[in-house]
């Protein structure tokens, strides 16, 4: 027996200037105008049919890691989040106040990862994530976006990358990483702007900014696998896209267009992207969708699929297997959203000696890391609730007794690190590429002495 709604204790208040300060200038007229405009002009069949079809059965609840981790608090169930936002908005025909919009932002932006697991639990396939993205869109149009997230969007808008990386910094970083890579593999190069290359390799901006060695590692892998590849020296190298998660679809569209146009300009055969889930989602689905393309103009391959290809075709050989016990975080944007679950397992099995599959749910049904969908990008103010909102993931990881969690997604990577820290699991997180660097064979003739 649950408590009636009015007896549920309130959630801790989180201060975020992006919500608190911006809400001060909102008027009821403006709120109603924006809400009605977004609903009338930007939504159609899916929005209406989903809302009219939902029979309020609550069967989607068990999908959501937020709900499961917060002691089955109904405010965190997928349909509960829609009730607190859209149902209320529609019932009041958009006549809501600024505090209500702040609540909407908190719920849709910081307490849902858009992981779409609930669509696999709802008998009707109602797309709750889509409905909550409409709420995000309304909040964005009203200027109510968590401050840290808005900063990344500003960066995308001004520099076409997520972290204010300037062009000279970008090129310098690539040169530096090329030098590093050549200290291991003599033929390692990072070819810039090479027209007609087979592979266009793109990364997310945090790589050059704070994880540059990942680019150097990729240069080694490419050299050993003898791939004809290139990276652009100009805008379009960043495949990340947080505007997509902030409801700023105009900037999202620009970012995705720049990425695909860079590849088209270099006349490459395909785009291979680094280990990032949301970047894959942006490049393959949300971007093309907004731009009116049924499919991306240049085929896009996620790193997991690329590594799988390199290993199964024998282009890279595994010299020794990684010994420490490992488990996996299955990023929803490539597993539930891209069907790469089996390939991911196969790459792990090919490279690691002691793989411990996580206990159920697995594959498409696995829990989201809790960081995706822009939630981790809402920054430190929201970290406590985010980590608390995913105790089920902590339990799942702990049960494997692995030492390493392989995580082929940047957002998951940081999110899982926070969970490991928050629940004191004493594990470490690694990208697949870090495992590959340790296990792949460097042929003698390529070895730098």
């Amino acid at each position: 027996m649950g408590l009636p709604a009015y007896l549920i204790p309130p959630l801790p208040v989180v201060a975020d200037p992006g919500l608190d300060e911006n809400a001060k200038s909102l008027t009821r007229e403006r709120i109603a105008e924006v809400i009605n405009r977004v609903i009338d002009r930007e939504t159609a069949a899916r929005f209406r049919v989903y809302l009219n079809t939902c029979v309020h059965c609550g069967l989607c609840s068990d999908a959501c890691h937020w709900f499961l981790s917060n002691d089955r608090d109904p405010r965190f169930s997928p349909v509960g989040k829609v009730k607190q936002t859209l149902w209320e908005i529609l019932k009041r025909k958009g006549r809501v106040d600024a505090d209500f919009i702040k609540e909407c932002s908190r719920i849709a932006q910081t307490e849902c990862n858009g992981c779409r697991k609930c669509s696999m639990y709802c008998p009707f396939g109602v797309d709750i994530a889509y409905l909550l993205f409409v709420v995000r869109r309304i909040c964005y149009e009203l200027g109510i976006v968590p401050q840290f997230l808005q900063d990344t969007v500003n960066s995308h808008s001004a520099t076409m990358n997520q972290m204010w990386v300037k062009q000279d910094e970008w090129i310098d970083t690539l040169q530096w990483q090329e030098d590093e890579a050549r200290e291991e593999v003599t033929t390692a190069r990072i070819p810039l702007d090479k027209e007609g290359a087979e592979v266009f390799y793109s990364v997310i901006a945090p790589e050059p900014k704070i994880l540059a060695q990942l680019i150097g590692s990729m240069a080694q892998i490419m050299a050993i696998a003898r791939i004809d590849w290139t990276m652009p020296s100009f805008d379009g190298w960043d495949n990340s896209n947080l505007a997509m998660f902030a409801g700023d679809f105009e900037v999202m569209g620009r970012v995705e267009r720049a990425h695909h146009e860079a590849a088209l300009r270099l006349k490459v055969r395909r785009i291979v992207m680094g280990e990032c889930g949301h970047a894959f989602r942006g490049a393959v689905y949300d971007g093309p969708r907004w731009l009116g393309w049924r499919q991306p103009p240049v085929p896009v391959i996620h790193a997991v699929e690329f590594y799988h290809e390199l290993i199964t075709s024998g282009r890279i050989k595994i010299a020794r297997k990684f010994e420490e016990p490992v488990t996996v975080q299955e990023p929803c944007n490539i597993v539930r959203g891209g069907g790469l679950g089996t390939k991911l397992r196969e790459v792990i099995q090919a490279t690691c000696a002691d793989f411990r599959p996580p206990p159920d749910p697995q594959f498409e049904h696995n829990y989201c890391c809790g960081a995706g969908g822009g939630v981790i990008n809402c920054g430190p103010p929201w970290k406590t609730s985010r980590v608390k909102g995913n105790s089920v993931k902590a339990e799942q990881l702990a049960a494997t007794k692995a030492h390493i969690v392989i995580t082929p997604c940047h957002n998951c990577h940081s999110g899982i690190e926070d969970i490991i820290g928050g629940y004191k699991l004493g594990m470490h997180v690694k990208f697949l590429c870090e495992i590959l660097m340790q296990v792949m064979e460097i042929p003698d003739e390529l070895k730098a002495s």
Partner: protein
Amino acid sequence: MYSLVSGPLVWIASIVFVGGMTYQLVNMLKSAKRDKVVYPYMSLKYGLRSLLHWLVPFASRNMRERYETTIVTFAFHICLFLVPIFLTAHVVMFAFAWGPKWGTLSEGVADWLTVLVVLAAVFFLVRRWMLPEVRFVTSLSDYVLLAVVAAPFVTGFMARHQWFDYETMVIIHMVSGAVMLMAIPFTRLSHMLFFVFTRTYMGSEFGAVRNARDW
């Protein structure tokens, strides 16, 4: 009174039901055009694959996890169609007005299936109260809809067993049946129509576009 209800009211109910469903369908198909992704993403193969996994009992993970709800839901919905369509009284009335006839359930079976539907409705009611996540999203309309659906079964049963005044009971039954039919297109009961479309769309998006399963 009886002839008024069994004649014109049944007509009105049927017209509202068919007209309302058609209106909802056309409306949906039209607004799906404005939702740019719907038609391009729709895939017959993956749509049907998903539909199948959600129409066969226990074919989806969530149905297995919530087996008690699954059993009740299937029993409830199957009887919901079976009983009124194959009920002797209904078939006879239909044949009397139109001519065509089809097989019927024996009276005892019809009685038991009717009781089953009512019990399932009670289960849904209790479930709404017991589970916090369902109670949280329950409003008056959910109770009303449940009552609207249960009413023809309760009153039909009462009429058949001649509880209270038979004539009055049958009239109440016919009115409640008509109300239910008319409610379907214009309330959440329209999930009867939309189920096929939301499910096949989600199946297509998962299967054809995202290369993943959705059950």
